[in-house]
């Protein structure tokens, strides 16, 4: 331990600065004590109290700066230099002008009165209150947050309806308003097809496929998954349909929803029936095939896919479309590679509706399809459960995302699961979606390739071929673009499906054995 005592003659620093500098000097590596002070009687007394006894201190005058540093022998020189650095402080004014941020919506609206939409992604416990403020201020709202109560959702949507505004959400993952993608959305061409969707990735997929077929999207209005429940009664969907009907830029309306409540489905179809434009409707998992209205077409497994129907109605010649038919020779080829015991499909999905769509394809052929989003409790499994037989997991569902980011952003949980599923010798196919676009991971394929490679080699060590089947939801305008992502997958030996339904169909056929 060495003590360094230095008196700087006629050097004035105000006491407040000195206190601040002392605090910093004491934090310097190797310093056990650093005292900086003007040589006032009070400060001299302080030094005496801590055992500093030196004639130079006695002689110092109040206009002199006293520096006392106790430090480890080998650290003293560095400590003095560091303290010198603190004393020789420069005006390091923050050059970059800070961006303006507001603490409250009221404050934001005051400064930006032309704000016309509020995107809310704060904790669901607080989202309703902020949404109410926005609506009361005459702003449209998109609520990305989940965990908003049914009562709040109903009250907010009624309030919005009264005011001629729209509430997208809660739990609304996607929207495209005036050509701008909000939250999770793909870069798609603008056009004349308006979408109202009570399903996030389902709406995204329709928009992407419309783009793929050469069409364009006027608006994509998300409603949140619960909008078509009996409690909410489809308020946002109905207001959305009416808004698109009144929108001169929209010529065709597309409706897509997860399984709706029957009474609400009827009500929604009635509103669609009043529209002056052709309306194409997909209610996933619904048995309805007839809408009862001339302008409203129900799109089901047995009809033309939604995107094709809409694109054709919007004026694009059907004969120009590349409809990506199922590749029958490919199915035969994969079947031949799989061993007899490889009977099952494991679907690991980021997108809830993508999972749903693929699962419906499997369910059309098999009974033993397990999922965390299965309606039948006998076939429901949780996030912690091991997969069994055919399993389709929506890894974006709450039981997977509790306390962690959505797999579209952070795929780590899915990466582990890919490897786990490969260890099961009864698995023939692992089916996966890759969602591109705004809000999503910036290289969802790249981050997954190592897990895919590992999974394949685990199967290979057993002497099995493991078929990895991928569907990339994205467009050529997305960053990264879909072509680049597909090329990466193909290089890793992954088979590509052209839609999520296609993914489900291929997967189920790959593992179908001779008697099927």
């Amino acid at each position, binding site marked *: 331990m060495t003590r360094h005592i230095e008196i700087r003659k006629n050097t004035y620093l*105000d006491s*407040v*600065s000195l*206190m*601040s*500098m*002392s*605090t910093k000097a*004491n934090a310097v590596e190797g310093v056990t004590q650093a*005292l*900086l*002070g003007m040589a006032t009687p*009070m400060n001299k007394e*302080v*030094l005496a*109290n801590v055992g500093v006894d030196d004639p130079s201190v006695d002689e110092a005058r109040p206009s002199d700066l006293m520096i006392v540093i106790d430090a480890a022998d080998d650290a003293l020189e560095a400590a003095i230099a560091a303290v010198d650095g603190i004393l020789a402080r420069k005006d390091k*004014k*923050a050059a970059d002008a800070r961006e*303006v*941020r*507001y*603490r*409250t*919506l009221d*404050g934001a609206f005051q*400064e*930006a009165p*032309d*704000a*016309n*939409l*509020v*995107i*809310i*992604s*704060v*904790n669901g*416990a*607080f989202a309703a*209150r*902020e949404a109410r403020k*926005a609506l009361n201020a005459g*702003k*449209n709202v998109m609520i*990305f*947050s989940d965990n908003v109560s049914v009562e709040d959702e109903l009250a907010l949507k009624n309030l919005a309806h009264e*005011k001629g*505004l*729209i509430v997208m959400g809660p739990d609304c993952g996607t929207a495209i*308003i*005036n050509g*701008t*993608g*909000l939250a999770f959305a793909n870069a798609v061409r603008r056009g004349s097809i308006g979408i109202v969707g009570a399903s996030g990735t389902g709406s995204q997929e329709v928009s992407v496929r419309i783009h793929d077929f050469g069409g364009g999207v*006027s608006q994509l209005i998300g409603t949140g998954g619960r909008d078509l429940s009996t409690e909410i009664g489809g308020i946002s969907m109905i207001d959305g349909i009416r*808004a698109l009907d009144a*929108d001169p830029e929209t010529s065709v309306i597309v409706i897509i929803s997860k399984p709706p409540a029957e009474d609400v489905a009827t009500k929604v179809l009635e509103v669609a029936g009043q529209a002056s434009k052709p309306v194409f409707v997909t209610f996933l998992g619904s048995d309805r095939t007839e809408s009862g209205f001339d302008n409203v077409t129900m799109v089901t497994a047995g009809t033309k896919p939604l995107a094709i129907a809409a694109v054709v109605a919007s004026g694009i010649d059907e004969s120009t479309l590349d409809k990506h038919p199922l590749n029958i020779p490919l199915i035969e080829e994969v079947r031949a590679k799989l061993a007899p015991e490889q009977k099952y499909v494991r679907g690991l999905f980021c997108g809830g509706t993508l999972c749903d769509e693929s699962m419906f394809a499997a369910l059309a052929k098999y009974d033993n399809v397990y999922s965390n989003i299965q309606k039948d409790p006998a076939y429901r499994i949780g996030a912690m459960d091991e997969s069994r037989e055919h399993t389709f997991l929506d890894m974006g569902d709450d039981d997977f995302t509790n306390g962690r980011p959505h797999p579209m*952003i952070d795929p780590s949980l899915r990466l582990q699961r890919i490897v786990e599923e490969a260890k099961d010798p009864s698995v023939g196919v692992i089916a996966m979606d890759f969602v591109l676009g*705004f*809000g999503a991971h910036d290289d969802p394929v790249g981050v997954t390739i190592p897990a895919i490679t590992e999974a394949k080699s685990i199967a290979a060590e057993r002497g099995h071929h493991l078929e990895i089947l991928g569907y990339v939801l994205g467009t050529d305008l997305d960053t990264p673009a879909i072509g680049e992502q597909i090329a990466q997958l193909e290089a890793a030996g992954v088979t590509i499906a052209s839609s999520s339904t296609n993914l489900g169909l291929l997967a189920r056929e790959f593992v179908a054995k001779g008697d099927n």
Partner: protein
Amino acid sequence: MSVNDLFSANLKPVNLGLDMFADDLKKQGVEPVLMDWTPPGGGDPDVIAALSRLEDPAVAERIDAANQVALDRILSSQPFLEGFGQAIDTVPGMTAKTILHAGPPIEFTRMSGPMKGAVTGALVFEGLAKNIDEAFELAASGEITFSPCHEHQSVGSMAGVTSASMWVHKVTNRTHGNTAFTNLSEQLSKILRFGANDQSVIDRLNWMRDVFGPILSAAMSLNEDGLDLRLMLSQALHMGDEAHNRNVAGTTLLIQALAPYILETDFTTKEKREVFDFVASSDYFSGPTWMVAAKASMDAANGVENSTIVTTMARNGVDFGIRVAGTGGQWFTGPAQEVIGPMFAGYTREDSGLDMGDSAITETFGIGGFAMAAAPAIVALVGGTVDEAMGYSRTMNAITTGNNPNITIPALDFMGVPSGIDVRKVMETGILPVINTAIAHKEPGIGMIGAGIMHPPVEAFQKALRALADTVKP
């Protein structure tokens, strides 16, 4: 804006939440309005429910009107220094065995180290105990009446300990007629109000009782007009004080106003010289004066029905308490916080006592931390930059009802100091008032060891908001 109007307008989104959504909007050429949002009410569901009740448009309108009345009363206040007197003769409810202290009510056993140090020192000073040990026994015996300064129209800095024979300022709010009191500055460091209590402290208190107080009192009795403290305070801010931690200009102005009268008193030149030397020994002489000016102004807003404006923020070293115009004398408390800031040489954070004193009346009024931008010379106190000091003052606009046109900050284009802290706004924004203050050693008998800034505990505001939700008429 209806949905169809939205379709035909330029999209102008507000992004409340995940920043990545804002980044994606920017990538698409849309400039989002950015938010720096925190959960209202500190995230407490009861508090949010209370806040929502107060947000009912009819209720909010009633509160806004009441707050305007309260703010007008505060801003129109004209605190005048009328004179000095001994507490026993002056302060309402004072007795020979009463000890006033800072902050919300507290019994002796719960008091912090420095407050105990101050109380016992005062008992020795008053001759009620022969020494500090005896004073500890007496303080715990139940014979002494402890009471908050604030409940006696008074404020006291740090421990706030005020005993019968101490001299106090007498300040009258000439607009509203109420009077407020506070004791005299002991200056800084090893002094009673920081918990020091050795013989040097008692000797100084004796001199203040026998010479300092009487001279100031005699001087002011020669000044029939009184001193316009609001005017002087306003000047002090223009000269670079924020009138809580920095009082250089204010002290100069005050002693300059007092000096001619001091010279005219019958005291000896030596005694007068002692007074001037004492005032010159630290910049803090006028500190209590601004506190009592603020107290006299804030008391004018007490009892304004339905008002959510904070009229008191005070701490006793254990609890931080606030009182609100619409809920009368009721205290809402939370734990006293640690003050973060530079320390005198030789001391560390481990030595510091928790936040203490009635001096936060200055921030309650709108000066001190709220006027940091007026005092760039002390930004080092908060380890910060001048820009940050400007930011503190601007930010306080988000939780206050208005600005004081009589007390302005030149560097902010003469913005009036943010005034009238609104409990609702504090809870909604999550922005807590910023308070400049000093740090006492946690043990009795030592004194001041540093200074810095702190924020009140959120609990005090949560409790106040819940009470307001029950109090304000629906």
